[in-house]
């Protein structure tokens, strides 16, 4: 078994890494974030300079036909530069769904993703992420040629700047889950926008009899696709977290090497050496889990979900440990808004809150074991 990145994956990693380090530092990212148009600019930059928006899509639609490990490579790099959010929802989550829907509307949507004219936010339940709060509470009713959608979705990441939304609803007599592709400016759709601690924008979304045409319906049997997209998102989040953790450790090592106390660099104190060693160990275990889940994404749904739960549980724990110790080892300066460190710390925290804590994923893992046994 060869678990090394192949040559083209190495090239991908290096070119994305180079592009990001040339174009995004913490200051610039922060300045840009106050502008609602920034995610679109970001995505256009990806389209024009590194072509990663087509990564998972088939060549006949203009895609690169790459697999989950390639996505892992890209997400880790995006995580290291803290610019992963619109890519995650658009290419990874929405992309997973659109790829499996064989309609003209879905194909058009994929083309729009690839040329960065569509930025998509996800408005369906990410089970395990939120317990009680974020179940899909929308319903769709048939309306002659199309449908009316009503309901709401809280903390819709990227909602404020998205051009389109993927809305999950209950539909029909049996209340099965359906998925709709909805333009964000559709009448009847209102958004209460706000910022998240990691600097991304989100909204609470309300749909009040939003009329959509028949071809906005992507599938009326969405549950399996949603589960698949959620697992793909989890795998991507795992890779992103690894990118963030590597950066947190690198910054910490650098800082403790140059900060002098008691007449020597902090990095010479054995307690701190051991702590940084432990951070490194956590990151290596996390990277292995990120690879594991990427490789399991194409397995059977139960196996895939179990792998995703395991990876999120383990990586979530690693993320907290690395992030908290990175701050701790910086001392007071680490608790301020001045260093990039704080932004990375808050992204790790946001991931935990938005995509589910290690505890939640352990419970999901337990459930998937029980399901297997039955």
């Amino acid at each position, binding site marked *: 078994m060869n678990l090394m990145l192949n040559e083209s994956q190495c090239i991908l990693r290096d070119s994305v890494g180079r592009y990001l380090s040339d174009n995004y530092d913490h200051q610039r990212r922060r300045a840009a974030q106050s502008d609602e148009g920034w995610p679109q600019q970001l995505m256009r930059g990806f389209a024009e300079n590194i072509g990663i928006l087509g990564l998972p899509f088939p060549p006949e639609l203009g895609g690169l036909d790459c697999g989950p490990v390639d996505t892992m490579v890209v997400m880790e790099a995006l995580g290291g530069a803290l610019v992963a959010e619109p890519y995650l929802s658009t290419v990874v989550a929405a992309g997973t769904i659109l790829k499996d829907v064989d309609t003209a509307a879905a194909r058009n949507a994929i083309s729009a993703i690839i040329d960065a004219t569509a930025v998509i936010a996800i408005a369906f339940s990410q089970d395990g992420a939120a317990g009680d709060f974020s179940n899909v509470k929308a319903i769709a009713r048939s309306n002659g040629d199309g449908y009316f959608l009503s309901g709401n979705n809280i903390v819709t990441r990227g909602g404020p700047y998205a051009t389109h939304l993927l809305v999950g609803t209950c539909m029909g007599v049996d209340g099965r889950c359906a998925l709709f592709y909805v333009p964000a400016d559709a009448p009847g759709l209102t958004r209460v926008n706000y910022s998240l601690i990691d600097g991304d924008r989100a909204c609470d979304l309300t749909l009040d009899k939003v009329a959509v045409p028949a071809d906005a319906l992507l599938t009326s049997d969405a549950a399996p696709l949603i589960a698949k997209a959620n697992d793909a998102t989890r795998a991507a989040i795992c890779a992103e977290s690894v990118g963030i953790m590597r950066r947190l450790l690198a910054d910490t090592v650098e800082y403790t090497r140059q900060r002098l106390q008691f007449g020597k660099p902090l990095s010479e104190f054995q307690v701190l050496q051991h702590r940084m060693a432990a951070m490194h160990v956590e990151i290596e275990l996390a990277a292995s889990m990120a690879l594991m889940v990427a490789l399991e994404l194409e397995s059977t749904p139960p196996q895939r979900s179990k792998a995703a739960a395991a990876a999120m549980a383990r990586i979530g724990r690693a993320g907290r440990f690395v992030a908290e110790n990175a701050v701790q080892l910086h001392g007071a300066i680490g*608790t301020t808004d001045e260093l990039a460190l704080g932004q990375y710390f808050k992204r790790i925290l946001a991931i935990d809150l938005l995509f589910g804590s290690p505890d939640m994923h352990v419970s999901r893992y337990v459930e998937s074991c029980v399901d297997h046994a039955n």
Partner: protein
Amino acid sequence: MRIKDLEAFRAEVRAFLDENLTPELRDAAALQAGVYSEGDVCRSWHQTLYQKGWVAPSWPEKYGGPGWTPIQRMIFESECAAAGAPILPGMSILMCGPVLIRFGTEEQKSFFLPRILSGEHFWCQGYSEPQAGSDLASLRCAAVRDGDDYVINGTKIWTTHAHYANWIFMLVRTSTEGRRQDGISFVLAPMDTPGITITPILSMSGEHEVNQLFFDDVRIPMSNRVGDENEGFKIAKYLLEFERGGGDAGMQVSLVLKWLDEALVQAEAQGFKLRDSSYLTKRAEIEIDLLALTWTQRRIVSELETGQSVGDVSASLLKLTASDLYQHATELALATLGPYGAVDQRVALGEDEGLIGPRYGAVFGARYLNGRAQSIFGGTSEIQHTIIARSVIGR
């Protein structure tokens, strides 16, 4: 004191708190993200306690303390926590007061102590410098004699609430000879002295609690020195024992748990079910740890006289344990918000939308982020371990 008397005392405290803690004060305390309550809330609660004679529980009676035993004091503080009282900043009562009582001249005591009690003087602590954090003895901010004055030049950083304070106690370098520890003096300066400027520093959660101060030819009378010249480090360390071990170590943790419990009752009234079994287990673990901390403090404190410090090793042990527990408690609280926990409420409040998500969780995020500083200020957890190790291993 017998158990029966202690219970009577507890009842008296409880009745007082019932009567005087207004809903506004409780609300303000519950919505505070930092360690200490802010400006107006503090002043108001300080006044109430002052009128009653209870504002300085740790001080000996002759200086205006209530004359309580350390155990009574613990009871008082745990009742305050149970009632959700605001936490007063420690710099005045908990830190500056005991130092003046122990090392101040009669004049200093009779001038400063009543003003600390009344709240007229609000203190901040000028120890840390950019290059002198854990290694406090390497501080450089210099005081040079000029006639009967000291002229101070240098900088202090991370000064909590300097923007509210009208006095600062600070460590300055008065000699560069001999051991570094032996060239430090402890001095007091009014914050409106010409030459002092304050620059705010924002925390990760967006709060303004700490500052950097610059001293540019700041002139203070030599009579504002506490203790002998170059004896300041000993005083500084004595003060740290109070900073670390002076209060009820578990008070902040119990407050966080109390606010969390109240929040969840509200949440349940709105139909959310947040207390699943993993929550309940974690909540119980924290409460059990808190019990261990409380009984440890009781054991330590029961041997003390009023006004005595717990000593450096016990202070470190209490501080270390309490800060760790506080961090766990704030993490637990934040997790109950699910995705709403990731909302930047500070930005939301500044914009049109106002608070996003359930009101009860408005400060859980900021409190967790702020809580990261608990294992850093007042001496980092690594430094507390070093102090404890020195005593355990006996070097």
